[in-house]
């Protein structure tokens, strides 16, 4: 849960100078007709969504954990993954019995190309020699996942189930807090201000300034 939207709105209203000097912090002036009550809250939610998507798209971003709430269990080989934001975080094999009993991350086969990996997976799935050393492998081709769970069963497991973990995001225009972590607050407010200043094409220079600020202010995200 991030910063409260009401506090961010106070900052935004003061920055666009839409509050009377004698009024409370962030109170929209009745004399200004440019911004409506609730407008900045909407812009903040949009800016929050933009930042959330950027976080989810970067697998190295530590804040990605905030949105890692999507899961899909019991995936059949050749089935499609559910809609998600960014890449799959992990594909897990839950194995009962046999050499690979327990829950572990699947890995791609050794093949260098997609075709080679799929061919390797096909042979492992058949596992004609009932080789118990066939490890849990999967290949992701776009939104489709292929895996060798059947081969792991033939190698001695009594049951295998495959699941995936990934990021999801749902926008909420009634939210009272930003969904992104606190360290993104300034960037999100700057982004909302960029949109607010650009309204009706009025203050484009200010809009451009805050748009740059929104991008520059991001903390270093690489591992």
């Amino acid at each position, binding site marked *: 849960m991030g910063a409260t939207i009401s506090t961010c709105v106070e900052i935004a209203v003061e920055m666009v100078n839409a509050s009377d000097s004698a009024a409370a912090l962030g109170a929209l002036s009745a004399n200004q007709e440019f911004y409506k009550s609730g407008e900045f809250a909407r812009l903040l939610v949009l800016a929050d969504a933009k930042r959330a998507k950027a976080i989810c798209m970067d697998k190295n971003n530590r804040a990605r954990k905030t949105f890692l709430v999507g899961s899909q*269990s*019991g*995936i*059949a080989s050749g*089935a499609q993954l559910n809609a998600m934001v960014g890449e799959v975080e992990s594909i897990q094999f*839950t194995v*009962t*019995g046999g050499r690979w009993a327990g829950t572990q991350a699947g890995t791609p086969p050794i093949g260098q190309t997609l075709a080679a990996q799929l061919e390797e997976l096909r042979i492992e*799935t*058949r*596992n004609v020699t009932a080789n118990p050393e066939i490890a849990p492998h999967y290949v992701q081709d776009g939104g489709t996942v292929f895996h060798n*769970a*059947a*081969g*792991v*069963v*033939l190698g001695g*497991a*009594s*049951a*295998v*189930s*495959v699941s995936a973990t990934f990021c999801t995001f749902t926008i909420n225009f009634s939210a009272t807090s930003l969904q992104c972590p606190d360290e993104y607050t300034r960037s999100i407010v700057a982004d909302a201000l960029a949109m607010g200043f650009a309204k009706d094409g009025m203050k484009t220079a200010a809009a451009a300034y805050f748009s740059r600020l929104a991008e520059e202010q991001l903390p270093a995200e690489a591992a």
Partner: protein
Amino acid sequence: MKRGDKVQTPEGKGKIVEIQGGGKVAVVKVKDKTVYVRLPEEKREDDGR
């Protein structure tokens, strides 16, 4: 066992939708999940397809 039969899996009871691996592996649908289970030797038969 054959397609359509019910079997118990770690995810719950489900229906066999496919037989693979020469009759040794059952692909079982438990609600919206798919589980791959080993069929005991005495319960194996060809898929018949």
